[in-house]
């Protein structure tokens, strides 16, 4: 028997009493109340007071009230058959706005230093009208020059929108991408899941557990969205049918050998997960054209997502869940062509370190060392890992529960497992384990939701299930806020910090060396290729260099400024850089302040610009830094 479920809305017809009509209005009112409370909570936030627990440390009670109201209302509404889908959608939209829209709307500046660098990549395209795969002034951005898809879109949106820089549109990226991902998730879940409670709860859990933060103005955000849409199309319109040659392998009326064991595993006739969404050949041609075009955009935008897509669609094909059997091969060819032709400049210069982690599973699985973090940051990191494990455990329990009730969701199982081989390919800067979670999350969220509603049944007036959904949602939301907002003390840049960077890039001559305390400041967003950039204590600095900086800052700085023949040298020290140093314990406590004092007292440096959050020093020529 197929495990397809009927829509709960089709059950329990009956007259409504006036009381039940009033009760049915609760979700509508709650959405409005939550939205108003949230908007009120954005006023007058003292973001400068954030501590190492991040944004949660300064959010007002109205914010948490908004979250509590929308969670309680969703838990209530999802169990009520009379609540239409669009009201559930409104709940998800408000949840997305509350969690993912708050930094965008409250900060007034672009958050996260990498987003500023990506604005710089768009700026490069705007100024030059092209990309330069061979530009090597900054290795981090040379990858972007070789995979420029997202940035060309950014340039189009910026210039067509009438802006001189991507800074006005970039802060909206997290809100935009999370909102459009709702549709992609519904496409994936709509392929097989007809119990709308499971579908909406899976979407809900996804947004309560997506703490990875890959939704900012970056190629990953666009690629992830297109990746989800491609998977959704494959599941909905290219779901494989039982293959006749497998059937004839056995005696008449009995299953073939392959069909026999696979049939037992996946459930008759080939699992419950064959889409009923009919399509014509012409529709499928049009959809396949869209898949190929979207994948081409992914392949030209991001290094990791093509691999995730090939693994995911390949796994569906191997499991007889996708009839587009040559699609993974085509995806591989497109990826190889882009890498070998358009991205060869990057590949040839970086092949050694790209291939080095291949097969080193232990190293690639390992995540960042917590021992160096501040105590609060350890709590944040452990909470994020706890959230990951909790969602994984809920998903596993949901899978077991559905499996035991005879429901074989093979498509979602293989899609949840498919990203794991990426662990054997690269460490991706130590965050591969989290990216695997990111790519598996939609399907894990489905199984987690299915734990609560393993089979279709009529909605009841019982308070138990709404209470359980609300309690689990509150638990997830608590962990999510700490995990997603936990590094906002350093991700947030005050207007004064932005002003200091503006001063720096307005005054620094082309060819200058710009030294940040770390890379965590609004950097490289203007004319980035014209400057050399380095840091005192940031990424790529060795422990020996850090020790030298602590014991003898003059020597350490001197070594940096004498590495090349620069027309000018600037050092910028900001509040967010200090937060970064403190949170990640990059330098012993007080050291960055001592370095600041050294620069102020040194005859070799002049304080060019200062405000309460930032200082810009310039090297006075002759005699180096001492």
């Amino acid at each position: 028997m197929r495990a397809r479920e009927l829509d709960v809305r089709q059950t329990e017809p009956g007259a409504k009493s006036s009381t039940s009509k009033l009760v049915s209005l609760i979700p509508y009112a709650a959405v409005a109340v939550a939205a108003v409370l949230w908007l009120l909570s954005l006023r007058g936030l003292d973001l400068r007071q954030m501590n190492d627990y991040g944004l949660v440390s300064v959010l007002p009670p109205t914010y948490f009230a908004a979250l509590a109201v929308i969670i309680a209302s969703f838990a209530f509404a999802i169990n009520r058959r009379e609540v239409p889908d669009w009201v559930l959608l409104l709940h998800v939209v408000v949840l997305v706005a509350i969690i993912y829209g708050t930094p965008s709307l409250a900060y007034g500046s672009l958050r996260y230093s990498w987003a500023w660098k990506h604005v710089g990549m768009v700026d490069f395209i705007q100024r030059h009208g092209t990309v330069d795969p061979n530009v090597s002034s900054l290795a981090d951005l040379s990858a972007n020059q070789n995979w420029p898809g997202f940035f060309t879109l950014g340039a189009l949106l910026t210039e067509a929108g009438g802006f001189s820089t991507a800074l006005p549109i970039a802060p909206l990226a997290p809100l935009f991408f999370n909102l459009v991902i709702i549709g992609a998730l519904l496409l994936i879940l709509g392929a097989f899941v007809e119990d709308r409670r499971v579908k909406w709860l899976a979407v809900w859990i996804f947004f309560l557990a997506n703490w990875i933060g890959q939704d900012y103005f970056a190629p990953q955000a666009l690629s992830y969205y297109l990746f989800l849409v491609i998977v959704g199309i494959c599941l909905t319109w290219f779901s494989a049918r039982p293959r006749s040659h497998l059937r004839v392998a056995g005696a008449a009326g009995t299953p073939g050998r392959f069909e026999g064991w696979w049939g037992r595993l996946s459930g008759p006739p080939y699992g419950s997960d064959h889409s009923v969404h009919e399509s014509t050949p012409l529709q499928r041609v049009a959809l396949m054209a869209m898949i190929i075009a979207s994948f081409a955009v992914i392949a030209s935008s991001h290094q990791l997502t093509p691999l995730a897509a090939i693994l995911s669609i390949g796994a569906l094909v191997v499991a007889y869940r996708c009839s587009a059997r040559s699609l993974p091969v085509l995806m591989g060819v497109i990826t190889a062509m882009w890498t070998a032709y358009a991205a060869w400049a990057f590949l040839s210069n970086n092949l050694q370190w790209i291939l080095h982690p291949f097969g080193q599973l232990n190293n690639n699985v390992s995540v960042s060392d917590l021992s160096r973090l501040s105590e609060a940051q350890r709590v944040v990191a452990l909470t994020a890992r706890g959230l990951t494990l909790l969602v994984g455990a809920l998903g596993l329990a949901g899978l077991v529960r559905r499996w035991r009730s005879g429901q074989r969701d093979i498509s979602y199982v293989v899609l949840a497992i498919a990203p794991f081989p990426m662990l054997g390919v690269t460490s991706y800067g130590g965050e591969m384990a989290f990216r695997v979670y990111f790519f598996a999350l939609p399907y894990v969220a489905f199984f987690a939701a299915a734990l609560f509603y393993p089979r279709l049944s009529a909605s009841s007036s019982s308070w138990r299930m709404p209470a359980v959904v609300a309690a689990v949602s509150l638990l997830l939301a608590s962990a999510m806020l700490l995990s997603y907002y936990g590094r906002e003390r350093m991700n947030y840049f005050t207007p004064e910090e932005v002003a200091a960077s503006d001063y720096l890039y307005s005054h620094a001559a082309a060819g200058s060396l710009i030294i940040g305390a770390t890379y965590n400041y609004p950097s490289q967003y203007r004319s980035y290729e014209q400057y050399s950039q380095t840091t005192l204590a940031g990424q790529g600095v060795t422990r020996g260099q850090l020790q030298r900086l602590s014991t003898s800052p003059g020597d350490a700085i001197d070594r940096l400024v004498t590495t090349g023949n620069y027309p000018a040298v600037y050092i910028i020290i900001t509040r967010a850089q200090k937060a970064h140093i403190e949170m990640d314990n990059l330098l012993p406590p007080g050291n960055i302040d001592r370095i600041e004092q050294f620069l102020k007292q040194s005859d070799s440096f002049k304080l060019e610009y200062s405000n309460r959050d930032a200082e810009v020093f310039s090297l006075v020529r002759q005699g180096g830094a001492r």
Partner: protein
Amino acid sequence: MSRHYQWPIAIIVLALAADLAVVADVHVAIRAVVVLSFLVVGPGLAFVRLIGFTSGYVEYTLAIALSLTLDTIVAETLIMARLWSVSTAMAILVFLTLVGVVLQIVSPVPLGQRTGEE
């Protein structure tokens, strides 16, 4: 007005308004809203409606994804070919959109209904 023409006309108006906003360089507040709305849904909606889905969220999800895909392909092609100009990019996207809309108008039955399956 027949429902058959409502969406095509809406898409045409949005496309032409967006192109006009770029060419005439209207105030950034108006230009941003009109142009970004078009770029996010316009080109995709012109073609996705041609395919003929009955579900609203499916149509809009695919329309946004296809719009961003077409936007990126057009922009990236021009940039890689060193022919970048925002006016050219907009003209190509508006042209593609109009092609999709014209096909919608002249096609009496969407692709999904050719065999009566959808």
